[in-house]
């Protein structure tokens, strides 16, 4: 029988960690772009757009991420389209991330005093121009800390992609456990690697939060 040394286990986990990182990055950046579009719709004061975003956000915040992964993985297949675990995980995590980011950012936009909207309105700026030149530059300063903080949730969320067969850190851990029968060692290492990914981010989020409090 094939023997796994400690280093074999660790190196295999680290290789799989790359996919956790890649999936996190894609989910975060795609989710960020979709979230930004939704943010414009959500704060546009155009009723149909606001309603659409509200329902979208309620759906993705109000159902488990795992169900969303299943829906994308098995649901799209019903229409005869072959969906790889990779594609399903990317789509589900992107939409899930965007829903949360939109709500985080909406809070930041609403924290900007009404006078900023009125002054820029009075200068004949359109809604998009107000957002771009006046509101978002200020809101983004407040948004950095909670956004970085939320990225930790995205990284941990990618673990669920293991259930639909996407080989990332958690899935690799399960496979190595099946081969080695050393669950405590394997899952301890898995947890440690997640911690090493997440801790610097939450530490950084805390740090910038403190710095922004004294900023102009």
């Amino acid at each position, binding site marked *: 029988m094939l023997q796994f040394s400690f280093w074999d286990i660790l190196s295999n986990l680290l290789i799989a960690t790359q996919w956790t990182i890649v999936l996190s990055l894609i989910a975060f950046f795609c989710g960020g772009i979709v979230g930004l579009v939704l943010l414009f719709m959500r704060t546009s004061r155009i009723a149909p757009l606001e309603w659409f975003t509200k329902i979208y956000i309620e759906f993705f915040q109000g159902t488990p991420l795992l169900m969303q992964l299943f829906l994308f993985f098995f649901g799209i297949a019903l229409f005869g389209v072959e969906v790889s675990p990779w594609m399903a995980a990317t789509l589900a995590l992107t939409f899930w991330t965007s829903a949360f980011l939109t709500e985080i950012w909406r809070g930041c936009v609403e924290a900007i*005093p009404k*006078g*900023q909207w*009125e*002054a*820029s*309105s*009075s*200068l*004949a*700026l*359109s809604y998009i*121009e107000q957002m771009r*030149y*006046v509101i978002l*530059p*200020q809101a983004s*300063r407040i948004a950095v800390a909670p956004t970085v903080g939320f990225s930790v949730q995205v990284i941990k969320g990618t673990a669920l992609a293991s259930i639909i067969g996407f080989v990332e850190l958690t899935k690799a851990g399960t496979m190595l456990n099946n081969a080695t029968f050393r669950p405590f060692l394997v899952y301890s290492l898995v947890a440690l690697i997640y911690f090493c990914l997440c801790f610097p981010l939450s530490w950084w989020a805390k740090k910038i939060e403190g710095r922004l409090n004294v900023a*102009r």
Partner: protein
Amino acid sequence: MSLVSIRDVRKSFGSNEVLKGVSLDIAKGDVVAIIGRSGSGKSTLLRCINGLETYQSGSIVADGIEVAGANTNLRELRRHVGMVFQQFNLFPHLTAAENVMLAPTVVNKVSKAEARATAAEVLAKVGLSEKMDAYPSELSGGQQQRVAIARSLAMRPKVLLCDEITSALDPELVNEVLRVVEQLAREGMTLILVTHEMRFARDVGTKLVFMHHGKVHEEGVPKEVFAAPRTPELQQFVGQVS
């Protein structure tokens, strides 16, 4: 032909009617001081003129543009109708010059260099040439308000609406702002001011409007109106504030 024409304007917030049929004509070069108790509807009236508030009936025509609900070309209107606020509302992430340059570059598509030249000119006019690159947080209240005036002037407005622009200032800073407004009046700028500065209204205004319970209660030439208020409400108001 009046520059701003307000006809029988009514506005309610819920069941509370704040404007109960206001009519007013403002000609080019007029300096209109609107006075009255808080809650008399004076700020609301001002905010209706540039579409920050909507109204239920009547009509407002400013610089040939009818200000009415969703169909109004607000962008065109606001290019010609400037507004200065009680709370300054400068953009805190931009320097004084950038605050002034924003609308000309974004709305009027003027080049950066040209906008900067305009900014230098209008900031000089309000006496802040040396503060072009200062951020709002580095300026006093009076200086911030003067930047806000310069920001409106950069769009070359035909009318400037001033909503209690000295009310948030420390007493010793009020005059530097009033001097700027007075200079604008002398240069022929059409101004509509909601103000509590009675002496300023009397000395600089060409027209005084006293609002009471959502209506124009009395109007006329400031010096005459102040010298001999016709209605008991204005007599009482003038007695209280002076």
